[in-house]
């Protein structure tokens, strides 16, 4: 379970006399549900909150812990438990081809090179990407890249998957494919989205507004509160 206690994130003012910029204010949450969605306007603090969950960003005040491991004091333990999927898969893919990228994730688990290649191909096949294994990542569509990025992150077998607006760059078909993939995952999934249908797939929805959680409920009630804030 992920716990946040009194978490704030503040960016100090660059010029004297200006006010500090507060990205998140005094957030206390326990995140235990299997599917949790974050919604909110641009700049509401969704990405900042998600990045706190695997230590990509550290809190200015308060603590964030994953299964009891503090993100500041035990970053390696947190990293190995929480995988992160970015909005733009090109920012996530580290190797030139899908199979090499998945192999990179498997490197510390499987020492034998042939076994690693076989397993990477197997993981790509499971997601229907096997035929793209040796293509350049620059030659893949946005949806294919996002699925490859997801496969690479899942290859390290994290207990929790955090995804920052994973459907934003996808067309309707790829969005549906990703939703089906997410629905079938064994991992706890915490994601942000602007798509209310995708948010409605969750067990719990958090609504962020100006760095605060203003609604925290099951999807119907939370999304109604969100629409009220937007209007």
């Amino acid at each position, binding site marked *: 379970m992920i716990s946040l206690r009194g978490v704030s994130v503040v960016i100090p003012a660059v010029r004297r006399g200006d006010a500090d910029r507060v990205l998140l204010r005094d957030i206390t949450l326990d995140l235990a549900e299997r599917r949790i969605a974050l919604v909110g306007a641009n700049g509401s603090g969704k990405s900042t909150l998600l990045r706190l969950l*695997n*230590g*990509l960003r550290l809190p200015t005040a308060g603590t964030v812990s994953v299964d009891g491991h503090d993100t500041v004091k035990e970053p*390696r333990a947190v*990293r*190995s*438990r929480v*995988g*992160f*999927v*970015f909005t733009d898969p090109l*920012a*996530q*893919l*580290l*190797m*030139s*081809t899908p*199979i*090499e990228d998945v*192999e*990179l*994730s498997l*490197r*510390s*688990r499987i020492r034998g*090179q042939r076994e*690693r*290649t076989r397993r990477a191909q197997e993981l790509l096949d499971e997601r229907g990407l096997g035929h793209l294994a*040796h293509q*350049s*990542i*620059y*030659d893949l569509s946005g949806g294919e890249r996002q699925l490859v990025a997801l496969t*690479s*992150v899942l*290859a*390290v077998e*994290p207990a929790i998957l955090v995804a920052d607006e994973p459907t934003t760059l996808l067309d309707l078909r790829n969005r549906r494919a990703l939703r089906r993939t997410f629905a079938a995952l064994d991992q706890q999934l915490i994601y942000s989205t602007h798509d209310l249908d995708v948010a409605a797939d969750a067990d719990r929805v958090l609504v962020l507004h100006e760095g605060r959680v203003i609604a925290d409920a099951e999807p119907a009630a939370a999304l109604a509160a969100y629409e009220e804030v937007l209007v």
Partner: protein
Amino acid sequence: MNAHSSLLGLYEPGQGWLFRFPVGLKYLLLLLVTVPPLVWGHWGVTVAALAAVLVLLGSSGIGPVRALRIGWVLWILLLVMAVYHLVSFNPAAAVVQSGTILVAVLAARMLTLTTSTPVLMDALGRALGPLRWVRIDPRQVALAVALMIRSVPYLIGSIDDARDAARARGRDRNPALLLTPVIVGAVAYAERTGEALHARGLPGDD
């Protein structure tokens, strides 16, 4: 940005003998082709090395079109060097200097076009094994080298992107204007690479 503009190319599995050749021997082959033109500095040796590396690649199913797809930036650089020596009435230097660089790049491509990055990383990790004596993990060094290789097509592509952006604003005549966006882009790329490693828990407990 397209990886095909990459200096070092993209590995695709093949049936040629170089694909089956042990990676250690490929490194040796690379040295055998690149060192003689560097040491002798004679145009004949350079031409022979160039022919040898093209024959090696061709005999493994990598024809001259794919072998010589090294990106326009390097071709311009080689051309400028050659033209400089030709107008200085030194044609031998034109062949030796531009040719030796081309031999080195093609020899490197002989390795990268026929060997997957994970195999190269494993081989490098084994070769750097003695670093453990000074408490440096060779697998992490191999990972750093692989990421550096991966960054080459990105950085070449970022020059194209910066040029396109300058052209869109009608300011493409001064190459110096490309410098700042390319450097800023390279720093941002390094930061994103760090985050991408972090996102999947790498480097792990190797």
